[in-house]
């Protein structure tokens, strides 16, 4: 009888321990994807669709920004979905500081380039999945590890007087699916 109680007790503890370990790891692994999905949905809702750019055009702190967002960085963002083909991002850089970064679905920043690393003040990038044919599309191909993700373009503003120039720079930017 005592042996049986001991057996069931140990089995229960082992089952609880395994469940606890598996659940903790599952939450830790899934959390970044859930955050990314939430941000992607917000970006897509803000601009009206996926694979389109949303431009912040307000200088300074914003209450609806992401946690610990940088107020000096004026952001253009795009929630991308490459399931139906590559997406193009093109335009002009911004001299104070400009960078283009891509985030895969687990939130890793798998690609970033800044204006000083480009050969000219123009940029033209084609974001594609492995195996998608981009040979005839021109531009510089960047391969995304996941079909969905987020693109950010950062432009730094020293103060509000930089905003007209940044907004003109945003207006000259194109982003979207390739016909």
């Amino acid at each position: 009888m005592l042996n049986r109680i001991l057996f069931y007790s140990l089995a229960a503890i082992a089952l609880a321990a395994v469940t606890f370990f598996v659940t903790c790891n599952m939450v830790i692994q899934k959390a970044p994807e859930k955050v990314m999905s939430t941000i992607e949905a917000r970006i897509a809702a803000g601009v009206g669709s996926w694979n389109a750019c949303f431009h912040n055009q307000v200088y300074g702190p914003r209450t609806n920004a992401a946690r610990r967002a940088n107020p000096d960085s004026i952001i253009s963002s795009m929630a991308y979905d490459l399931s139906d083909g590559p997406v193009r991002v093109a335009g002009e850089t911004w001299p104070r500081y400009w960078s283009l970064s891509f985030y895969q679905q687990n939130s890793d920043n798998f690609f970033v380039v800044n204006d000083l690393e480009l050969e000219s003040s123009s940029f033209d990038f084609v974001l594609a999945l492995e195996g998608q044919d981009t040979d005839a599309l021109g531009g510089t191909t960047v391969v995304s590890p996941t079909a969905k993700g987020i693109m950010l373009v950062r432009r730094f503003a020293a103060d509000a007087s930089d905003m007209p120039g940044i907004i003109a720079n945003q207006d000259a930017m194109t982003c979207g699916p390739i016909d």
Partner: protein
Amino acid sequence: MKYLIALVGAILIVAATFFVARATTVKSLTSETSIFDTFEDVNGTWLFSDKIGAAAASGVERARVALGGPLGLSAKEAVYFVTQQDDDGAPLRSQCAYRITGPPIDTRWWSLALYDTITQHYVPNAENRSSWNSVSVLRADDGTWVIQVAPTPQEEAWLPSQETADKTFELMLRVYNPSDATRARLPNIELPTVERVSC
């Protein structure tokens, strides 16, 4: 019958443990300071991480950053320092005034931003200011700079903390495109001092 009881017991154990584990993990990942738990202590005041947005980050590091400060740049582009305390080790509090004195930082651009520790967002203020950067801040002839953090207006480079007393805040120093010399010394570069002036 005894197998049925054992099966029901097992299901109850799995279900109860699942909910406890999920709640515990989420609470651990989303507490206001957990994003910094895996940051490296640089000098007793400032913390540093080069795992933001990095493929080399552990699952816990990735989850904490995603929840507490998503979409940061990888260390190839920018590095991040943060502090939640002054140079004496006391938490940064909204009713106190602080003098942040910084050295010239050999980098393309830097910014110092203030966030509410609890909300992890900006602190609303009449100036609509939550940061100073390497272009906007005034620098002395030797390149040093001073930022005054306080709840009430200051004469130079005022970074408003919230007017509500006894709230905690944090300072984040972002360093974009550090020079090769700066990068070679990371994270042991000369960092701003955080001196409590009054309280």
